[in-house]
């Protein structure tokens, strides 16, 4: 059914404009619940500038990724093999695949933590992770088209949830944002690094771009998806800064969830229960995209079947979720993997681009 090539069958390919949803869904995930705390630590109430700056940088990165993939005519695995030879190339690919896998394990675990803190203090991590691993399995085994379908539906939900930030605009304090530009440019730059965790997801383009029908045309959609995420993050960060003051913010783990507590609908008293539930779809979509990318990476470089690899990856996810059992550790791992992602996106991808340019020049 699935063949081990970088050129997928036409039935598995998607329309270019779906890239908007793929980019948006892979970026918006667990990070949106808490990113404000991390960036406010560095640049205070001016860190919304960093949100916009990071969005801008990511647009450039997306352009670079498109260049790499279009010039290399294949996914990351083929490009690695072309550029570095079979052995070193495969090692690099495995490293990237491990990054995808670890990131998805950490995101899964940290969202289970959210559920445990906000909804079910006695939720069994093992059984719950096993059941959601089965859910991931049903999506991933369907191939990229199905994973992208989930991403598509999750975007509708994440946009809906983002619109619930409106309470902060009606009940917040605009004075919280002033005096504007109180922080030095260096501080604002420093906030880019923690912000990156929420923007991660564009690197998946390296794996799934061959699954898009009209690659060149989809660049503008990818940029649009990224701008959409930037808008959502911007609305979100302003909302949180309006509602909480900076000192308060440092003591709140998930500011968005605290904000949802304020929402009062005629038929719903505590909106955060519904919010946490619906946001889970968004997180699952992100995790599925990452897990699919991991499965695809390992599938491409090994001779095993796609099913076997997916099962192995999911067993590792369940085991990984159960070994980390401490909130502080989860936070620590999240920060570390976000740094890995940061360096991957901001250093490795430009490096790959330059190296590929040189390699192509030499080849000519």
């Amino acid at each position, binding site marked *: 059914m699935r063949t081990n090539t970088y050129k997928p069958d036409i039935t598995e390919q998607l329309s270019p404009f779906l890239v908007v949803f793929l980019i948006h869904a892979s970026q918006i995930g667990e990070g949106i619940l808490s990113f404000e705390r991390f960036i406010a630590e560095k640049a205070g109430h001016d860190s919304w500038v960093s949100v916009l700056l990071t969005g801008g940088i990511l647009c450039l990165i997306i352009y670079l990724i498109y260049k790499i993939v279009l010039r290399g005519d294949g996914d990351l695995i083929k490009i690695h093999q072309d550029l570095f030879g079979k052995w070193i190339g495969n090692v690099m690919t495995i490293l990237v695949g491990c990054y995808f896998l670890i990131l998805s394990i950490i995101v899964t675990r940290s969202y289970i933590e959210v559920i445990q803190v906000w909804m*079910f203090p006695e939720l069994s991590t093992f059984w719950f992770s096993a059941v959601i691993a089965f*859910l991931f399995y049903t999506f991933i085994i369907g191939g990229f088209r199905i994973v992208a*379908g989930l991403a*598509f539906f999750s975007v509708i939900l994440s946009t809906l949830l983002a619109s619930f930030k409106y309470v902060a605009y009606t009940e917040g304090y605009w004075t919280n944002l002033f005096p504007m530009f109180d922080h030095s440019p260096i501080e604002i730059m420093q906030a880019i690094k923690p912000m990156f965790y929420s923007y991660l997801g564009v690197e998946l383009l390296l794996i799934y771009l061959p699954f898009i029908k009209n690659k060149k045309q989809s660049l503008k959609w990818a940029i649009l998806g990224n701008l959409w995420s930037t808008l959502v993050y911007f609305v979100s960060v302003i909302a949180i800064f309006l509602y909480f003051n900076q000192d308060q913010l440092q003591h709140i783990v998930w500011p968005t969830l605290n904000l949802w507590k304020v929402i009062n609908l005629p*038929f719903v008293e505590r909106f955060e*229960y519904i919010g946490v539930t619906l946001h889970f779809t968004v997180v699952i979509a992100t995790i599925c995209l990452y897990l699919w990318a991991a499965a695809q990476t390992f599938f491409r470089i090994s001779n095993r079947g796609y099913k076997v690899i997916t099962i192995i990856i999911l067993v590792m996810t369940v085991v990984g979720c159960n070994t980390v059992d401490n909130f502080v550790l989860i936070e620590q791992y999240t920060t570390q993997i976000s740094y890995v992602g940061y360096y991957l996106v901001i250093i490795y991808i430009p490096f790959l681009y330059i190296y590929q340019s040189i390699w192509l020049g030499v080849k000519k």
Partner: protein
Amino acid sequence: MFRRSRDKLLNQSAVDAGSSSIDELVVVMKQSDDFSHFEFHQMTISFYKTLVDQTEVHQGIFSYFQNNRFDRLEEIKQALPIDDITLTSDVDTVKEKMMQGYLLLQHATNQQVLLIPAKLSKARDIAPPEIEYSVIGPKEAFVEDMDININLIRKRLPLPQLQVKELTVGKLTKTKVAIIYIDGIVNPDNVETVTQRISDIEFDQIIDSSFIAQMISDNSNSPFPQLIDTERPDRVASVLSEGKVAVICDGSPHALTGPTTLVEFFSAYEDYFLPWHIATIFRIIRLFAILFSVLITPLYVAVLTYHYQIIPMDLLGTIISSRRDIPFPPILEALILELTIELLREAGARLPMKIGQTIGIVGGIVIGTAAVEAGLTSNVLLILVALSALASFTTPIYRIGNTIRLIRFPFIILAQLWGLIGVLLAFLFCLSHLLKLTSIGRPYTEPFYPPRLQDLKDSFIRAPFSSQTKRPILTRTSDTNRMNASRVKAKQGKRK
């Protein structure tokens, strides 16, 4: 070895054993008491009394023999004013034709035999549709006879391009199946797929089109039907002109049409007879009814078991006072009520119509009220369950209603396990299944995913006919334009 012996058994089965000569065949057939066999001058005539139209045999054929004398079968063939008379010596043809109501004519001097058609065709009168009833619009429904059904479709689409492909399936029933499509509009791939799948059917009996539907579905383990079965000729004519394929099975008053999508199951054909905005609102109401029907009991279980904090203060009072004396947890309460409703529905469906109504009244009113008064269930839940049962009956296609009622139970169980998160997980499992589902190779969740704006015009909304200038992308038709769009615009201008 095992397989070979089984194959041998199959080959030796009594039904398959062919007779080596026509005389032998007649001997076998004579064993049945409804078989007539008599000699007449130099000829032997044999037929099944129960299969032929006896008036026609006596008046049209026998009277001919009495008035004229024939020495050769060829003469008869030319003289009789009946077409489709065959002259053959092939045993299998003779057997097949005789089972369809042909007369067998043997002549002492001739090796060959003559087969004269005198088929008795008795069919029910065309009646108004019962399952897909509509207040407005045509009121004819398919009957069990295939020729009448095809005639009903042909009358609505008087085109030479409307083509019918006949196949015979079922080892014992030898059911005739017709694949109908409009050449030039339909995508040949779809016809090819359907033809291939139907001719691949290996089963001894095909009684109804639903047998075929189950066997040719893309995923026969799915609770979701992947082909629409309809009893309305107008609906079939309409989907044929959208480039879909219809399958009609002899002996079944339901046609199958495909490829189809999930939303098509929620569109009543009456929607097309109403103004577009009214139809759209009805469709949206139906869609909400389905969501309500699936989700409301699980949500009740989830919220009352784990998250009663969600309920606003005023509403909480009402719910608590109705649940105060209930000895069961919400999950048991919900399961008991849901199963009661299913029981009532099943009893109502199995009984004759008049008793069925009584059961409905006894069950709905007496048991419901008594259960609440006895303190076994809360009246809030009773209202919700009754409403969700009602909502599940809004589905225009009967089959999907069954699915809706079935998939509610996994939702309830997951709701008990993990509250709202459980409901969400059940929903996502459902979504992953739906995303993977295809109908004759076309995506089932279209036009939502893959998102296709053009097909959205006739999904949960029904845009005015003037804006539906193209045929659905789903079917990948050879001819995509429904009409000349530029002329439509000109006309609109004139009306102003």
